[in-house]
């Protein structure tokens, strides 16, 4: 599923990375706990989170996430946007809450990270 399709499905706003909306996303995971993301995230993941501080972008960068979706209308800090831009991580923001955002993507065929790997995941 391309990121632009995710943007449409979640009625999301693009915060940064407009030029990367054609990237392909194969799986996603949602958590507000960055320690969990570090433990169970996999490279290439689409990270859905309600934690919009710079740590969420750093965590996404560390696990090599392909993109971030902030739920509940959260917006990143300026520092987060700068880092995401530098590390080529697109950020979307949706007003949907975590459960609904994940549910929409899952029901449209986007797997959870645990489905795409043989280990436990978000």
């Amino acid at each position: 599923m391309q990121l632009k399709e995710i943007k449409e499905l979640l009625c999301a706003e693009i915060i940064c990375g407009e030029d990367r909306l054609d990237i392909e996303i194969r799986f996603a995971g949602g958590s507000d706990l960055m320690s969990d993301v570090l433990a169970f995230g996999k490279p290439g993941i689409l990270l859905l989170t309600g934690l919009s501080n710079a740590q969420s972008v750093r965590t996404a960068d560390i696990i090599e996430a392909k993109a971030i979706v902030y739920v509940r209308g959260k917006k990143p800090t300026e520092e987060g946007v700068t880092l995401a831009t530098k590390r080529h991580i697109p950020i979307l923001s949706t007003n949907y809450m975590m459960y609904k955002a994940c549910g929409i993507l899952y029901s449209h065929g986007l797997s959870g990270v645990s489905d795409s790997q043989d280990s436990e995941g978000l």
Partner: protein
Amino acid sequence: MSSEDAFTQQFKISGGDFGKAGVVSTKVKEILQEIGIDPSIIRRAAIAIYEAEMNIVMYAESATLTLHITPDIAQFKFEDKGQGIENIEMAMQEGFSTATDEMREMGFGAGMGLPNIKRNADKLNIISHPGVGTSLDIIFCLNQKK
């Protein structure tokens, strides 16, 4: 990298500076990429270093990270001054945490830090003196994939 080659660099990490938490990890990851370390090792190392850095920001006063890379290993030695760890065995258990609300608001403090470091590292040594500080030695073997 030839057998004579070794690379060493030191970084300072400030405890309590949540604004800069993760900056050193990002820098180290870039260095590892520049050196040309295997991407799968970089991924594991980056997670371990980031967790260790977050632990320092959350619990210590200050620390140094010494990065030492030889053709065989990548070693990350964190030496902090701070409260130390009372019970390392407990701290190694997933879910055990002494985090404050502020730490949890940052998305950390879920008791996953040290277990996460252990899970990713090839070798981990922890020495801690309560009230003095903690030394964390994290080693990755560069000639084998985990």
